[in-house]
């Protein structure tokens, strides 16, 4: 699989996770989100940016349970819960949001 941003080709694996983490840009995130049929708004950007920060610090994409707990701690229980997160990313907050954030698939996801 691959994405095209400003005429540039960005390689990705068969599930749509980009191959080189350094290829990521906010513009690419928009393109990945479109292919996932997700419209990026402030709430979704908040999660995507959070994931990128988490990866920067710990070098892993967190499991969904860990992500929700961390969001709860940082942004409060009205955002750190399953319902809110699955409304933003219906096919799985960790899986889908990680893809948009340009991170590898969370460890433990199959």
């Amino acid at each position, binding site marked *: 699989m691959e994405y095209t941003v400003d005429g540039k080709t960005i390689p990705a694996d068969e599930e749509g996770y980009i191959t080189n983490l350094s290829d990521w840009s906010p513009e690419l995130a928009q393109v990945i989100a479109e292919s996932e049929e997700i419209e990026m708004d402030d709430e979704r950007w908040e999660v995507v940016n959070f994931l990128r920060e988490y990866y920067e*610090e*710990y070098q892993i994409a967190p499991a969904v349970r860990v992500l929700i707990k961390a969001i709860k701690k940082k942004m409060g229980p009205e955002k750190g819960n399953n319902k809110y997160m699955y409304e933003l990313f219906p096919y799985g907050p960790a899986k889908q949001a990680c893809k948009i954030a340009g991170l590898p698939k969370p460890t433990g996801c199959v």
Partner: protein
Amino acid sequence: MSDVKKFLYVNRKAPYGTIYALESLEVVLIGAAFEQDVALAFLDDGVFQLTKSQETDGIGCKNFSPTFRALGDYDVTRLYVERESLEERGLTEDDLQEIMYEDEDDDWAEKPSICVISRAEMADVMAEQDVILSF
């Protein structure tokens, strides 16, 4: 699940010369989803996994040492390190990176995850497990 077992992951290899250390960490992260009672042990060359200031850009390997600091998020809050193994290698606890976890039951107070114990205590820890996974 009520049937919680005690799991100990025993790490005895240095971080980058073989794949053992990284594999162990990945198994720990995956296994954390099963909500068992998980602890990690570091002895022999395994203590080298926790040293500070690892920088792997020059060898083209992923630096997974920061990932140990995420273990608290996965409810893995006990990292036993064997004192004799440190001493035999000329290391002290100060050579290890600081790894903290937030205690949910204590108003998210930050507490250290690393616990340096003697060889005899390590043998006791091993003897109280249900399952030991070696790397």
